């Protein structure tokens, strides 16, 4: 299914359509350190369409998280270009970039980063507070749907401290999807989980990504998780190599 059809399908759902087509052209990333430059990424390029998924692997310090942060517009590349849905987000101003990130990108972190003072439902709704005010009721419905989808519909008013690690990560997945992003980025989503939970979370991630027709990029150390992805890359010495 091409991108236009996918967008039309999403439109039919009544969702805000975000074209998550991801194109990375020869990006590099360096950091200054004691009079010399530290090269983290060099000439990384990739292209992914809606519904595609990929796992990025590599040894510690190889730049996996840096690549993810660039794809998530959390930091700009030193060189090269990134476009998502035809837009180069790094040409937007601060407000534009924030809006772009809010609508286009969903993050899932290893540490889940749920707000301890908010309930499960509220944690899922958090990204909607940065968006436009309209659609408050629909956001609530969607949040409930997502939590139902991840199997936590009976834990809506529970606090993160009352959930297990896996349950917290499922909440984080639901939060990442609340704004129907075109791109889903997960940094070691199962890194803190036991094997069984990690399997479940991994499956959930792949399922919802497919359902939502988003681009999914996962950084992981786990071979088991990585094997489940149709595309696998390895970052080695700053270069992305297909696995």
């Amino acid at each position, binding site marked *: 299914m091409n991108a236009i059809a996918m967008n039309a399908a999403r439109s039919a759902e009544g969702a805000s359509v975000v074209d998550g087509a991801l194109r990375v052209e020869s990006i590099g990333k360096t950091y200054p350190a004691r009079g010399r430059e530290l090269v983290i990424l060099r000439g990384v390029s990739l292209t992914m369409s809606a519904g595609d998924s990929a796992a990025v692997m590599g040894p510690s310090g190889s730049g996996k998280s840096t690549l993810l942060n660039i794809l998530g517009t959390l930091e700009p590349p030193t060189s090269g270009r990134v476009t998502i849905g035809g837009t180069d987000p790094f040409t937007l101003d601060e407000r534009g970039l924030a809006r772009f990130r809010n609508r286009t*990108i969903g993050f899932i972190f290893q540490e889940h980063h749920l707000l301890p003072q908010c309930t499960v439902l509220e944690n899922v709704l958090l990204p909607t507070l940065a968006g436009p005010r309209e659609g408050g009721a629909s956001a609530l419905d969607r949040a409930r749907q997502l939590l139902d989808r991840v199997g936590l519909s009976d834990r809506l008013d529970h606090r993160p401290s009352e959930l297990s690690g896996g349950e917290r990560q499922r909440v984080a997945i639901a939060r990442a999807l609340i704004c129907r992003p075109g791109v889903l980025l997960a940094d070691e989503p199962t890194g803190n989980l036991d094997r069984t939970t990690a399997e479940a979370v991994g499956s959930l991630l792949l399922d919802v990504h497919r359902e939502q027709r988003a681009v999914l990029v996962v950084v992981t150390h786990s071979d088991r998780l990585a094997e489940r992805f149709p595309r696998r890359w390895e970052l080695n010495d700053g270069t992305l190599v297909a696995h």
Partner: protein
Amino acid sequence: MRWLVYHIRSATYHRRTNLAVTLGAAIATASLTGALMVGDSMRGSLREIAVGRLGRVDHSLVAQRFFRQALADELAASPQTQSPGDFTGVAPAILLRGGVTHAELHTRVERVNLLGVDDRFWRLDSVERPASVSRLADRYVILNEPLAAELNANIGDDVLIHTAKPSAISTETLLGRRDDATAALRLTVAAIVPAEGLAAFDLNPRQVTPKNAYIPLTVLQRTLGRQDFVNTILVSEKSATDTGVPAASEQLSERLQEELQHHVSLADVDLKLRLDETHRYVSVESEAVLIEPALEDACIAAARAIGLEASPVLVHLANTISLDASSEPRASAHATPQIPSPSQGEGQGEGDRNPPKVIPYSTVVAIDPNSPAMKELAETASVKSMALAPGDVLLNQWAADDLHARPGDRVTLTYYVSGDQGKLETRSATFALRGVVPLSGSAADPGFVPEYHGVTDAVSLADWSPPFPIDLKLIRDQDEAYWKQYRTTPKAFVSLADGQRLWGNEGDRFGRITSIRLSPPNNGATTSDADPHALADKFQTELPRHLNAAELGLRFQSTRKQVLQAATGNTDFGVLFVSFSFFLILAAAMLVALLFRLGVERRAFEIGLLLASGFTPRTVARVLLWDGALVALVGGLVGVAGAFGYAWLMLAGLRSWWSAAVNTPLLRLHAEPMTVTIGFVAGLFVATASIAWSVRGLTRRSTRSLLDGNVGDSGLSGVVRRGRTASITAVVTLTIAVILAGVAFSADTSTQVAAFFSSGSAMLVACLAALTRWLRAQPHGIMHTPGVAAVMRIGARNARRNVGRSLLTAGLIASAVFVIVSLEAFRLDSDIGGNDKQSGTGGFTLFAESAVPLPYDVNTREGRDALGLTNPLLDPARDVRFVPFRLRPGDESSCLNLYHPTQPRIIGAPDAMIERGGFRFADSLAETEEEKQNPWTLLRRTFADGAIAAIGDESAVMWQLHLGLGKDLVIKDDRGREVKLRFVALLKGSVMQSEIVVSDAQFVRLFPSLGGRSFFLMDMPSADTVEVERTLEKDLSSYGFDASRTSDRLAEYFAVQNTYISTFQTLGGLGLLLGTGGLAAVLLRNVWERRRELALMRTVGFSHATLAVMVLVENAALLVAGVLAGLLSAALAIAPVILKNASSIPWSSLVLTVGAVVVVGMLAGLAAVVPTLRAPLIPALRNE
């Protein structure tokens, strides 16, 4: 989810951190609001005190002159005071100042308010009084408690009361009774009343409770010889409340004045009419003998208005009348028919060639040559020309015969004139004898001379009792015979112009005539026209229309309104205490910022998450700010409650430890709703601003770092750059500090303090810059040698982990120590000067004030003899010099008076003082070299706009009067006219803070009715001071003489500023301690952040004790760095004080303050460290 829910959830979840932030915000709000409430309390208390002492008195008339008591009755009976009129009570009274002495114990109290009152006075009270008070019997007196306590008097004890004896005749005129200037009475204490309501009555508001004695009105009137006369009327307004100002107060005051104008009569202005049936005229005369200029004008205007001739007359006493030596002796041309001529009386025949040369003690009349009486005299004297020209004299027949004088002879008169301070001068004038008048008609009228008790009523010349010496040996039988037959009939007549020129007083301040003769034109066309009774009636009816009661000193004031204006005070204690509390507020704000920042840093991932979720940095910052504002709001509400406690504590301090600043225990807590609101909003602002400052830049950190929980500094290059800036700053400011110190050493005293303080400030900045440089520097060397030194090096190095935090805490401690210690440079030392003429004492050892103006010159032997000062210590040869000043009593303008002075005390400096110079000047308008050498000469400067040159103390002029050099103070003179006093020079740190100084000449112009000298500065050998003070107070007790040392007075003034410094230091010290608490919070945070490292160090073998030492060294490094930076800088700032008088610095309290900071800081650090080090090891390693 609504944002409000989010904020509330966040606040609740992070309640531990937020509680500390709330506490910080509460302290900031409590300090701010509480300080402002001190201002409310001060204003409210001053208002309560002043208004309470008025009872229900709203308006008052207090005059220099005495007027009919019936005037008060007439006002009370007028329609305005009858129901439903606007006034409810009118009370006559006598208000004087004097001294009271316990008859047995001999304790003496000066500057007592003496009130002659009856029951009408007590009906104006706000406190119910028993009949024993309101209807006091004769021979009794009521004392208020402060007076009784100081006297040590009880009910039934006898007291002696001394006061000035009022006389219409000024002691500065020839006929003024200098030897009868005081009055005394002995009374028994009937009651001692608490000083509330009218028992503390005082029209001059001041916070010190007045000492009052209440005497039955009739008793005081009798003692003063002024039966049925008073000098005060008090009026109560119907619509007045106890504390408020009646809305129409000013208008009602004007109506009272109008009503008074309708009732004022001749007797109220010391005038009287004498009817002469024989010569058919009415003579307007004055109890003061001389008729003051305003009354002269009014009388003449009134006379003209009803078509009468008004002839002014001036009478004087000639000590001798004699022929000028150039006149040839000759026989008498006319023998006096009834009184034998001296030659005949002595058996000598006509044509004797040795006539008597001197006629003693004769009245001489100066009269307008165009007046009817003068025309008649000229006709009878057969003077061909109509007018008696200046330089001419007419003698009566008796005198001409006695002197064997003929027209053309030259006649010399000798006479007294009254000089300064009772000095009598004998002068003479020679006239050309124009003619001789027979002793008939106008020439035989003794009525030219007004009544003067002791002279005009004397049986014989020898019985005269004038206030000047007379030589009885000069009086001859014929002189007594003349007196017996003709009494005061004048023996000589001169022109009015000559008389006023020869016998006038300076500026005619007391008047230039002794009577005005009223007669119909052409001496009366009809009998009725000439009837003196009819003339008198017409004149009495007409005169009040031409009198201006207000200009004559009978002036109602809206007293309650004036008092309330004064009660707004000079110093805004609210602002003052906010500045005193500055460090407390700053420390609280710092604590709020620090703790909130620490809390937010713990939520770094939350910030990163929000940014990653698409919130803009600005939105995230707003979220944090609202989180903080909610906490600040709660803290503010708590702080408002705490503000009452803070204000109460400050007032308790002002009543006790800091009482020297306010001199009253009567302070009560007041709080205006607006003040509480302002304080709350200000506290909220401070806390919120601190929070905003603390989170600045946080959302600019990389999202990735924030998600990792890292909010630290940026990369190494930034460290290097900022470290370089710090180095440059340190070098530059150190250079500035050294240069300023060098300049300061060579500067004059007045600028030295400021220069050293600036040098110290620059040094502080240099120290902090150096500290920044050290904190930002990369560590050198490798630590490889185990031991305590290594542990300490690690600890010190840890201070560099978070440069901002470390600098903030050390900087606050350094700044607080610097300010608290360096304030010592501004402490004023009263133990300076001594006999140094250029000091604040002007070289004077004592200053004094007398309730009764001294009528003699105390610098002359004659003056001291007249005053009864016979102690050899006071011999002028012993270098005891007095500089006497005239005094217009009023409100003190010094820092000891919290009330705004509406009528400041004014003194007149004699030429001797102006020539002498002395004192230190802060600034002046001096232009010429003479003025610069001696700015006192500026008092002689005149201004085209009529302003009068004045000198005041800089502190009083700036802080009490809110004026400055070259600015004008508007006052009212004796006649109620507004006059500008322009400050031409400002004294620095002088003993004259309570007075405004003008020249003596200008004083006399402004207040002609105030005679004598009441204010004195004295210099003498220091060894004599105690004995001289004691002697003066004892020997001049009847004048209410109260002397004090100038150094004691300076100490009182300086105590106010020094107390303010102490207050600032105390509150600053509290702020410093609070700041030390912040240091503990920083340490706790640092330790928590490093818990994994510390756990690791424990794992590899470091003991708890070693780790505690390491952490405490980090704490100590910042603490000691801050304290040392502050002390070093402060030492430079107070270098002048250290060099001059190191022992004057309160080392113990400073050491205590700084020591407390160090100890509390270390203890707080220890309390922060111990629990963290004792945390379980494994969870710490796992970062749980």
